[in-house]
């Protein structure tokens, strides 16, 4: 547990969070390398299956980062993503994975600071939760 480095998958919308990550880089803002970014054309593109598969393949935490409410490039993909995340949270509980391991976050393309802050906060939260129960079961 002491050396536990969580693997976190972040599904980032091309129009906001992905650009915000770029912005964080340009601003030389550090954020944990635990966060593995998957660029998506819109957070609404992220399917329940993508999220569940990430956990199955060994992710300790997953978050979906979409545009600020009302600012989706495709009208309301971020609202759909938020509803989907809520749905998958319930499914994770059924499976026996803590639903806190999955989050929906919103940010704009200019929020490099927020990107770095969210990445840090979520990494710390997952670090405190420990390895995903699925990963622990595989290790045993």
């Amino acid at each position: 547990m002491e050396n536990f480095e969580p693997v976190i998958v972040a599904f980032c919308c091309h129009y906001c969070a992905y650009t915000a990550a770029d912005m964080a880089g340009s601003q030389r803002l550090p954020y944990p390398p635990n966060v593995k970014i998957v660029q998506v054309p819109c957070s609404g593109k992220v399917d329940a299956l993508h999220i569940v598969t990430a956990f199955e393949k060994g992710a300790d935490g997953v978050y979906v980062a979409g545009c600020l409410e009302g600012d989706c490039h495709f009208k309301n993909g971020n609202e759909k993503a938020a509803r989907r995340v809520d749905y998958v949270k319930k499914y994770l509980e059924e499976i026996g994975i803590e639903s806190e391991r999955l989050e929906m976050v919103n940010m704009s393309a200019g929020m490099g600071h927020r990107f770095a802050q969210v990445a840090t906060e979520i990494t710390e939260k997952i670090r405190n939760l420990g390895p995903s129960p699925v990963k622990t079961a595989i290790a045993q």
Partner: protein
Amino acid sequence: MITAERKPLEELIEYIKPFKRILLLGCNECVTVCAAGGRKEVGLLASGLQMAMLKAGNNIEIRQHTLERQCDPEYVEELVPMIDSADAVMSMACGCGVQQIAMRFKDKPVFPAVNTSFMGASERQGVWAERCQGCGNCLLGITGGICPIARCAKQLMNGPCGGSTGGNCEISEDVDCAWQLIWDRLKALGLQDMYLENVPAKDWRSGGGSGPRKIIREDLAE
């Protein structure tokens, strides 16, 4: 379409616990449309079951396959090459599909992964509502295209009961009074005379009252 909902994961785990190799089947028809048992739901369930079983210390093998139509024998035949490598089958199709698999593969345990619910229509994205009970003697022609069998809680045939208030059924404010809907529509169509037609007590023999039903088309049946 026939609508369905996935059973709780806990119940499904109980079914498959004794087995190692599971064939998880979806159906491309109704259950795909109502997002209960299509290819995507099969993937989601396979992943969920795999993780839940791993957590319980069971490493199982789940093979996924989605048939075009599970209630049709010709599509079920597709499973012949893969059935031997499975200890049990779990089907996400409606009850008809599950039974078709059970009938074809007599030596394989078959478990349902969904609860088949009703014949319904889509009200809007993600919402399905009951519209037909398959009573075998359609009344829609005299009820303005609104079914009192499927949509009236009491299945009344000649107008509303005393529980109809402000267009709602007494069982819930979320349920429309079917007879209010029927009257409003007949009035809008200028067909109020139809409302006066006295419908005799329904003969339920065509609606399952005389046992399981069957349709035989002489020109098609082999």
